[in-house]
Each structure stands twice: as C-alpha cells, then as structure tokens.
C-alpha cells in the first residue's frame, strides 16, 4: 500500500514551492484546513495564487497568509467582511483578485477535475463577471464561456481518513473540500482521525482515496468569529 500518511504538518507541506497555485477548502468557519495553512505560512512560502471561497477572517483561516504578504493573486467568491488583511493588501495593490460567482467557482474546479475544457452558463451575463469572456446565445439564452480552474495543490479538511485516503466529512464542514480534492494535482488533507483501511463503510466514503495524496492528522483548529 502506498504510504500517504505524513508524520507532521511541516513535513507534509515542505515541498510546496513559491508561486504555487493552491486551493483551500472551508466555508463560514467550518471545514478550513487551518493547521495546514499555519504550516504553509510558517515555512515562509511566497507569491502563491490562492483559490478559496473567502480571504480569511482577520488573522484566521487564510488571513495569516495575507498578513504575512504571502499571496500574490486570489480567486474567490466572497472575500468577506472580516478579511482585513486581504483588503489591506488589495488596496495597496500587493494582491490581485478575480471574483467568481460561488457556484461557478465550484463548477470551474469540477471542470478541471473532470477533464472538461469549459462550459457555458447564464450566471454573470450582463455583469462585470462577463468582461472579457466569450458570449453566445444557446437555445435563446445569453451565456458566457467559463474555463476550468486547476491547482497544483489542494489543502483540505476532513473528519476521518482511512490509511488509503478515503474521506468522510462532518456536518456542513464538507462544503468545498470534496470538490477541491478532485481538482488539484496533489491533494493534502488534514483530518481529526486516521482509521484503518476497511473501517469506513464503502457507501459512506464521500471522497474516494484516488483523489487524496497525503494525509496528516491534526487537532482541529478553529477561529472564532
């Protein structure tokens, strides 16, 4: 069996290079790979492109990466009212940002995962989101072409992994995590618990092990607010 379990948070992110495109799971305070984000920031990574629904909650979640000036470009749906450090970097021109409608962000990642080169959607037609995109009419409906979003790495959070990398998620902490797991070349998951192969019932697996490359166990880290 391929060994996917990493001994430490620092070891599991050690080879992520400066300038990497990285997806970060999580929504509304739930399902963020906070320990991995801390480890990535601690290693002093620079110039990353971050793909994430939001841009942190003060120092929490992705906030630390903006505070430390480690992000060059971000693709997000909802930077968020408490993304202070992102807002500062953005105002100073240190970070560029592409805003993407949330469901389209999901589908663009799924397109990448599914080997599709794009899709047409009515979402964003006639808005700033459509700027620079091909527009056409299909079955009488105006629509725009959206292209896939790939990443070199996805950092995600799950509740449990078996030693093979099959994952389960807790409650609404699932959110973006299973999608990002499928869309990146290398997916790194932090979990509350690692269990032996066979102890997750096959019909309960949410993310199949084929999408998971590295596993690290870490105590849940959550930011208030």
């Amino acid at each position: 069996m391929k060994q996917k379990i990493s001994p430490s948070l620092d070891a599991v992110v050690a080879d992520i290079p400066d300038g990497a495109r990285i997806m970060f799971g999580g929504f509304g305070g739930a399902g963020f790979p906070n320990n991995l984000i801390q480890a990535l920031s601690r290693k002093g990574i620079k110039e990353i492109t971050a793909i994430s629904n939001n841009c942190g909650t003060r120092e929490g979640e992705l906030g630390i990466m903006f505070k430390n000036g480690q992000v060059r470009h971000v693709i997000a749906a909802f930077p968020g009212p408490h993304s202070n450090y992102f807002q500062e970097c953005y105002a100073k021109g240190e970070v560029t940002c592409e805003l993407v409608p949330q469901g389209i962000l999901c589908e663009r990642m799924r397109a990448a995962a599914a080997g599709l080169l794009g899709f047409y959607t009515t979402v964003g037609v006639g808005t700033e989101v459509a700027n620079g995109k091909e527009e056409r009419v299909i079955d009488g409906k105006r629509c725009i072409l959206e292209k896939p979003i790939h990443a070199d790495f996805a950092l995600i959070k799950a509740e449990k992994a078996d030693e093979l990398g099959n994952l389960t998620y807790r409650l609404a902490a699932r959110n973006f995590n299973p999608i990002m797991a499928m869309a990146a070349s290398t997916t790194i998951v932090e979990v509350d618990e690692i269990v032996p192969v066979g102890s997750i019932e096959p019909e309960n697996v949410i993310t199949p092990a084929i999408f998971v490359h590295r596993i690290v166990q870490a105590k849940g880290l959550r930011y208030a607010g």
Partner: protein
Amino acid sequence: MPDKPRLSREQIAQRAARELTDGAYVNLGWGIPNLIADYLPKGITVYFHSENGILGMGRRARPGEEDYDLVDAMKVPVTLIPGASFFNQADAHLMTRGGHLDVAVLGGFQVSEKGDLANWKIPGSKGIGNIGGAMDISAGAKNLIVCMEHNTKDSAPKIVKQCSYPLTGIGCVNTIITDLAVIDVTKSGLVLREVAPGWSPEEVQAQTEAKLQVRGRVPEINLG
C-alpha cells in the same frame, strides 16, 4: 418624504414569509431575507437550503447548543429539521442554478423596472465587493423575491429605471417586497400589488423612480 411609518425590517420579512408554501425548498440570502425563517405561517414546513451544503435547516442554535461545523451562509450556528441532508458546495449551487429550489429571497441595493438586480457592491465603497452565491441564485431561481428598504438612507429610490450599481443578474427578479410595497415584475413592467398601511399608490410612486402600474384598487399589506 412623507413622515409616515414604514414597515420595519422584521415586518418586511413577515410579509415575505407569506409568499412561502408548505413543502417549499427555499434559499434565504443575507440581510432582511435571513429574518424570514422566524415568521413562517403556522402549520407549514419549509425546507431551507444553505449554499454551504444543507437542506432542511432549522432554527438558530441556542446558547450551549452551537456546533460550528453546522452553520448557515452567514456563519451562524443552526439546527436541522427531520429529513435534512448535507452535500458539497457544487451540489448546493447545482440546486440554486439548476432551478431546483422553489423560491429564493435575496437582499438588494437596486432593482430595475426590467427585474435586473444589483446587490453585491456599492460604487465607491472600498474593496472589491462580495459576489458569493448571489449570481448563481439569481440566474437559476424559479421565483426570486427581493426584500429591501424602498429607499436608501439618503432617500434615493432603490427601484429604478436602470441599475447604476454593479449588476448581480439581469431580468431575474419576480417580486420586490419593501417597507412600502409589494411589487411584481411582469413582462409589461412593474405592477403595484400591495402598499404599506396608510400609504397610497401615488405616495409609493413618488418614492419610486421606475413607473409602477396600478391595476384596480391596491390593497394594504396585511401582516396578519
């Protein structure tokens, strides 16, 4: 502006709640829409959808009951009702965009006479703005209700001929519920369905940039 009482934010939510029917699948957005769950008519069950992957959200969690892996789109800890389910964010928006929900209720900065909606960015405000799920929801909603105040804090009309704020979606709004009126967006324009108690159609029109059509007697909003 006439110094007459308008509906409170809670009363707008209360009126909007009466648009929901038993068994409906419903998404509620930020702001006034988020208050609607507290005013459901007695005896009906509504399955509230949250864009982070929940169908069947119940009331907000009480102190001591909070689980921060179970939050709504505003990060507020919530509960579930029997029959609830979880799914990922892509499937959550497949539901919004694909026309699977019965009703979506969003907040708004401006709505045009053609039913265009602007609700994600105020021109001149600092920062890049927040789209979130609003564009997916407005593009796919079978029935999109916008709840908002009729005028800005500076008394400018929010129901306009053409939106001057960045758009969320075009031709997507079905009904507007404000502190002064209930207005339907039809192919022939905006139709005034109800007015706030004590307000005449003419007085509501005076607070509105877009033309409101009046078809017969316009009843007052009934919150009962």
